């Protein structure tokens, strides 16, 4: 990695502003843009380091893109660097969504807009179904995980359990299940 003084806070902010402005869909979609800015252009980190940071971003709470920005910013310029990178990452969203929400607020009673959105909602349903299928293939790998999946759906749909409790219970189940597995070996 380059020495700390080589990077200004403004550079961090602007680089992550670009990453935020040019990635659609966040999370996994940000990786190519992140690599281009951080590795190829500024040489702030090696490819291996970026992938490590990205992996940490995935296993910590919150938005993966934000976690990654915070981590790289911190490594380059400490706490202020972390803040600069994170604000850069979220600034395009704040600007674009606030403008769009304001416009939609004005026009949402129009018949055309309502009709368009009734079709858009169908598309979103289909996209979510695709995401669920993809995630299920990767995450439901044995009987305990399938049971945990079904239990989550029933607990939230039928008993309206808060997602917070689902997350807490799932973490505990993961720890206990792996412990049992090891002891039975």
């Amino acid at each position, binding site marked *: 990695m380059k020495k700390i003084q080589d990077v200004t806070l403004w550079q961090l902010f602007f680089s992550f502003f670009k990453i935020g402005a040019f990635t659609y869909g*966040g999370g996994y979609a940000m990786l190519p843009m992140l690599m281009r800015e951080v590795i190829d252009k500024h040489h702030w980190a090696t490819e291996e380091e970026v992938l490590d940071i990205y992996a940490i971003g995935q296993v910590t709470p*919150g938005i993966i893109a934000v976690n990654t920005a915070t981590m790289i910013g911190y490594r380059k310029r400490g706490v202020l660097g972390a803040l600069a990178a994170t604000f850069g990452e979220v600034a395009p969203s704040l600007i674009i*969504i606030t403008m769009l929400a304001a416009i939609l607020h004005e026009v949402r009673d129009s018949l055309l807009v309502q009709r368009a959105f009734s079709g858009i909602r169908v598309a979103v349903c*289909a996209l979510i179904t*695709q995401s669920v299928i993809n995630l299920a293939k990767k995450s439901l790998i044995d009987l305990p995980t399938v049971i945990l999946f079904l239990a989550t759906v029933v607990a939230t749909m039928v008993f309206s359990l808060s*997602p917070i409790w689902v*997350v807490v219970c799932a973490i505990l189940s993961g*720890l206990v299940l792996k412990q049992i597995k090891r002891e039975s070996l």
Partner: protein
Amino acid sequence: MMYLELFWEFFKIGLFSLGGGLATLPFLYNLAVTHPHWIAAHDIADMLAISESTPGPIGINMATYAGFQALGPLGGFVATMGLVCPSILIILIIARFLGQFDQNKYVKHAFYGLRAAVVGLITFAGLKLFSVTMLDGSHLRLAESVLFVVMLVFILFFKKIHPLFWIIAGAVIALLLQFPL
């Protein structure tokens, strides 16, 4: 005080949503139940559509939109700050003290259970979305259901095409066929 409450609600979402932008979705449905004056369950589908069609992380886009819906432009800013705050705090702690956090045995074990539950949570959000879009009382809406099946087949077949394309296609088809409202 309203802003403080909004900040706190999104702080909790940031703290407990693991596994990418869509993971915030079930929390938003929960928020529509606990704070119906802020956002309505049937608005969430539109929020998601906007968030998927605009640049930036989906989770951030949805927080900005939901916050705007609840308390106006400043609400959008407050909600987004609430969402990223736990991330910043946790990442700073990890960066400082736990270098190999993702390699930790217990973190891996926890994620074995967590990944399954996250699929369940997103399924829950999907079912909510489905009932708003496809159901009219207890009846299935015909035009919407047919379009859903057709689109899903295409999406699963043409995996590389960007979600934005399908969202625009949905809008165009609904306008052309004059979907019943």
